[in-house]
């Protein structure tokens, strides 16, 4: 199928993200990109695990973490992953408005997560847990902060796509874009699940 074809709900393909060669390339390339990102986060995790007890007199994980906030943030991000699934469901059904709606909810939830994370970080800094406090603090902020940076970039990306395409609706040119953005969002979510487990839960246990 061709990129510039005008489509209706009937002619819209079942997998619009892979209907064109460009789409297929984007789909596959993005999966590879996520593969690279996985290695990147794996390296960050490994370092974090190696340094998590090196508090050098500063606060330790157990003394520091505020689980209620983190739990709330986790819930927001997990839910946002679900809402982005809804959005993709509507994309495949060629229902642009509902897709935009669910993407909007995803963005709100993601922004909520990010706000909580920023609040959490400022709290920690107030408690004397700065980036330069210890090897543990550097590793913590770098790992969690890199994830936070990904969330922020994802938000900018999805908002740009929504605004750019608000007036013209879905087509085979932008469907793969929406799709890979949601893929990215899922990836961020999965990484967070690991952060929540490895950093926060294991940190609470000690």
């Amino acid at each position, binding site marked *: 199928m061709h990129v510039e074809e005008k489509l209706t709900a009937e002619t819209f393909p079942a997998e619009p993200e892979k209907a064109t060669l460009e789409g297929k390339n984007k789909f596959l*390339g993005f999966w590879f990109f996520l593969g690279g990102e996985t290695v990147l986060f794996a390296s960050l995790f490994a370092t974090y695990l190696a340094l998590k007890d090196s508090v050098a007199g500063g606060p330790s994980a157990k003394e520091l973490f505020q689980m209620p906030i983190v739990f709330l943030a986790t819930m927001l991000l997990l839910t946002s992953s679900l809402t982005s699934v809804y959005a993709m469901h509507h994309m495949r059904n060629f229902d642009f408005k509902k897709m935009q709606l669910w993407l909007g909810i995803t963005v709100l939830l993601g922004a909520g997560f990010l706000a909580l994370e920023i609040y959490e970080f400022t709290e920690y800094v107030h408690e004397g847990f700065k980036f330069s406090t210890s090897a543990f603090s550097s590793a913590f902020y770098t790992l969690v902060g890199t994830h936070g940076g990904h969330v922020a970039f994802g938000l900018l990306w999805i908002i740009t796509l929504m605004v750019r395409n608000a007036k013209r609706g879905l087509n085979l*040119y932008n469907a793969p*874009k929406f799709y890979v953005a949601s893929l990215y969002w899922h990836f961020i979510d999965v990484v967070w699940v690991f952060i929540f487990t490895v950093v926060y839960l294991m940190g609470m246990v000690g």
Partner: protein
Amino acid sequence: MSTLARKKGVGAVIWDYLTTVDHKKIAILYLIAGGIFFLLGGLEAMIIRIQLAVPNNDFISAGFYNEVLTMHGTTMIFLAAMPLVFAMMNAVVPIQIGARDVAFPFLNSLGFWLFFFGGVFLNLSWFLGGAPDAGWTSYASLSLASPTHGIDFYVLGLQISGLGTLIGGINFLVTIINMRAPGMTYMRMPMFTWATFVTSALILFAFPPLTVGLIFMMMDRLFGGNFFDPALGGNTIIWEHLFWIFGHPEVYILVLPAFGIFSEIFATFSRKRLFGYSSMVFATVLIGFLGFMVWAHHMFTVGLGPIANAIFAVATMAIAVPTGIKIFNWLFTMWGGSIRFTTPMMYAVAFIPSFVIGGVTGVMNATAAADYQYHDSYFVVAHFHYVIVGGVVFALLAGAHYWWPKMFGKMLDEKLGKVTFWLFFIGFHLTFFIQHFLGLMGMPRRVFTFLPGQGFETGNMISTVGAFFMAAGTIVLLANVVITTVKGKRVGNDPWEDGRTLEWAVSSPAPEYNFAQTPLVRGLDAYWIEKMEGKKGLTPAEPLGDIHMPNPSILPFVISLGLFVAAFGFLFHQDHAWGTPVGIVGLLITLGAMFFRSIIDDHGFHIHKEEVMEAEKKGAGA
């Protein structure tokens, strides 16, 4: 350059190259940039060898020597070998698989410009307070102690150029999976394409650990991090692990394409199909896989304990098996063939004994207990130069001569090519063979001088003489390039006459769209098959029609420029008030350009059928 470009003014040509997304032009950009960095790295090598020619030499100072030695290694690996490999990949792979371009032409251009700006950034350190001086491995305790901004240039420059490499890797993975012509099954792909495929996968998984290591070092040096500061709980061994988890696969990232280039050349100039093609594919994949399992053999003396050392020793030895398979397959490709000793073939033939020496000393290094003696001595220097020069540089020189006509439409002069070869070949062995013995005799590596009376005098002098031979060879090569560009005659599709793969079926250089009609591939060595059946061209897989092409774009240049600016800002943010604002402006330039890329639709354009027919007629007449 195409006839179209010659009519344009200089400004228009430059603009054309700044904005091009055509893989063939990007290949030329990689070749020029990589070539310049290669000369720079070579110059640094000459300074090293002159300094070490005699004991207690004071040609350069100790501190400057460390800068030169660091930049020699860093430049040669990241800024010369990598881009030159990418030059070959870009010039050849899309045509070899019967594609009109790579999967992501825009990203292809972005990859180049990121590499280029990263490399320029790194080299600006020479003029801005001093180059990095902790070796290309930049081990954490020393690199944190380094007083100048050199290491910061290293960290940020490599970060930017590494990003470009990663993008390039993903691009080739998708290109090879999705863009192959009909009939080009995986097991019909030319060996160079296979090597590119595996190398790209290695890039994808090896570069992120380097990225992370560089982030840590940037944090430690510029933003108050403590990853590598033992006083605050940090651990310098983490850097060593991250660096070598990247660094070892990097060796295979370079050498697998070299293997691929030689596989093509052996087959072509023996007039025989590659012996044991499927086992060659298998060996390539296996080498790529094992390449990730062996990084700690660079760290045998760090004190990881006998269990880790033993495991990594045995794993490392295992790599010798698939590599050996390759060597014998090449020998038996020539066996029974009809060998023609062209310049590329000379390099290929010389590669076998040279690389075998590098390979077996690799196995010697793998024997952990004995490596306690070899490690960080000149033995190791000799070993990896045998692998990198005897393997990769020979391959790049061979590949450049082999595909020069395909890239530029003119043959490099064969006589001068052979002069280069002999000078380089003799110089190479003269320089590095003796270094094995220097190492065993107790000479540590990375020394800016040595004292008399330790038995190192003769060996070092021989080594320096050899280096001058290599330099002379390089000068002849440059002369050859100039002479060819000025005087060379245009050549047809298949100038070597024994071409086997698809790139030899299209005109030299290939037209913008590569194939007027996507070819139908009917087996390994697709073009050879057609030739043997007496056909002149390829069997088309589609009727002649309009051809869809991507639009050129300046955005990749701007995105990279933004990061370049940002790196400057952040590098100086502790010294100057303008640092942070400039850094932020740079990032905004990058993000802004990405934003434009996102919101501006780019559907590309079409070359119409009639224009294609016209161009094909001209191409055939040329």
